[in-house]
């Protein structure tokens, strides 16, 4: 059988693909920021002196890390609507992505906090810094610096995972591609094109994270090694 690839019906609809890519990027950036906050709080919570706080954080991390994102997003999307909250698909997508990546970031940041030398904690205590001050002035930056490579690959995985939100009809790149393949009857070409687009997005994101790392962690820039 002769196979002929025809990309013109896909390229004709390029504004739709571009819109989708922008939604994907915005979702990813928003979820990266909020997920990082949640994850850092959660990592600090797991070191909390209050057993209940650390238990809640541990349960959150384990529950999220051991269930699929698709099920989480279905649970939030359909579950919230039966409870009477009607949120738009994109809000649910952002919420679900944040909750999901928060758990992974929490685990990564915990490793970062653990890697900070005990002497640093003790020194901060001797200087009379409060827990909050210790985290902010002493622990947070070295910890983030050390786990920065894992963090950035986790956030790139998050961008790729945002494709799953197409399953609750969020008009991001994959969602729009599903529509395009439906009307053009050119599924192979459509998915090849968005595959390339995702690849480009992930390359761009990696470069951006490298740049952020350079700016945020001068030691890495000057010496080429983390702390």
């Amino acid at each position, binding site marked *: *059988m002769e*196979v002929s690839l025809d990309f013109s019906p896909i390229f004709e609809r390029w504004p739709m693909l571009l819109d989708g890519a922008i939604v994907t990027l915005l979702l990813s950036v928003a979820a990266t920021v909020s997920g990082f906050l949640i994850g850092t709080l959660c990592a600090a919570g797991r070191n909390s002196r209050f057993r209940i706080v650390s238990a809640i954080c541990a349960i959150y991390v*384990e*529950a999220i*890390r*051991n*269930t*699929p*994102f*698709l*099920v*989480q997003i*279905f*649970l939030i999307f*359909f*579950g919230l*609507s*039966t*409870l009477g909250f009607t949120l738009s698909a994109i809000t649910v997508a952002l919420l679900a992505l944040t909750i999901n990546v928060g758990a992974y970031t929490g685990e990564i940041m915990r490793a970062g906090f653990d890697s900070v030398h005990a002497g640093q904690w003790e020194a901060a205590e001797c200087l009379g810094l409060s827990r909050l001050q210790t985290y902010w002035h002493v622990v947070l930056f070295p910890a983030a610096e050390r786990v920065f490579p894992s963090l950035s690959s986790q956030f790139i995985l998050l961008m*790729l*995972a945002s*494709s*799953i939100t*197409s*399953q609750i009809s969020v008009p991001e790149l*994959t969602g729009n*591609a*599903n529509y395009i*393949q439906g009307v053009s009857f*050119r*599924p*192979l070409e459509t*998915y*090849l094109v*968005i*595959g390339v687009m*995702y*690849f*480009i*997005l*992930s*390359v761009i994101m990696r470069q951006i994270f490298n740049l952020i790392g350079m700016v945020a962690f001068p030691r890495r820039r000057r010496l080429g090694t983390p702390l």
Partner: protein
Amino acid sequence: MVPTFGFIHIQFLLEGAIWTVILSVCAFLGGGLMGLLIALLRISPIPFVRRLAAWYIELVQGIPLLVLLFTGYFGLPAIGVPVSPLLAATISMTVWVGAYLGEFWRGSLEAVPKAQWEAAECLALTRWQRMFKVIVPQAVRNATPGTVGFMVQIIKNTSLASAVSFVDLTRAGQLINNSTFQPFVTFVAVAIIYFLLCFPLSVLSRRLERRMARGMAKA
């Protein structure tokens, strides 16, 4: 009349869970072979082959699994290869798992101390013997905790096969939700079954890692 979530639905979910396990095993076996191949190509003495494997890893790690699945499911029939949902999902997941395990196992192979490679060479072993009699057995030990951890990722990501009409645990949940309109109960049940599949592997992975760290400390 709308049925309420009951025993019969749990039974249906468990049947879906069996298919989830079957797809996970297929994906792990296929992806494991692919990963081994990629890892070996990645440390080949020929620069071009090394680069080819690196490109494969880069490319696949930059594309969402969902898009790979759609490409397999819709794309293979479009080029004249008819596939069932299970086969399409297995092929796509093999490609995906192969890239991640390939990159991970390359690290494990390279983590085997250089002296072992040299000693094998001094004993006049062939490349093949050196790789499979000396290096791989030691690399397997390094790689086991991480590989078990990755199995959790595989099980979770088989849920995406529900998007290409493979009736796994997630799809079973969707079907039940469509008939009972009880999404909360249904998807919590689905999530619990996934958790029961994944959590033991997560714990095992962590335990293996700790045991290996202890072994390192002793040595």
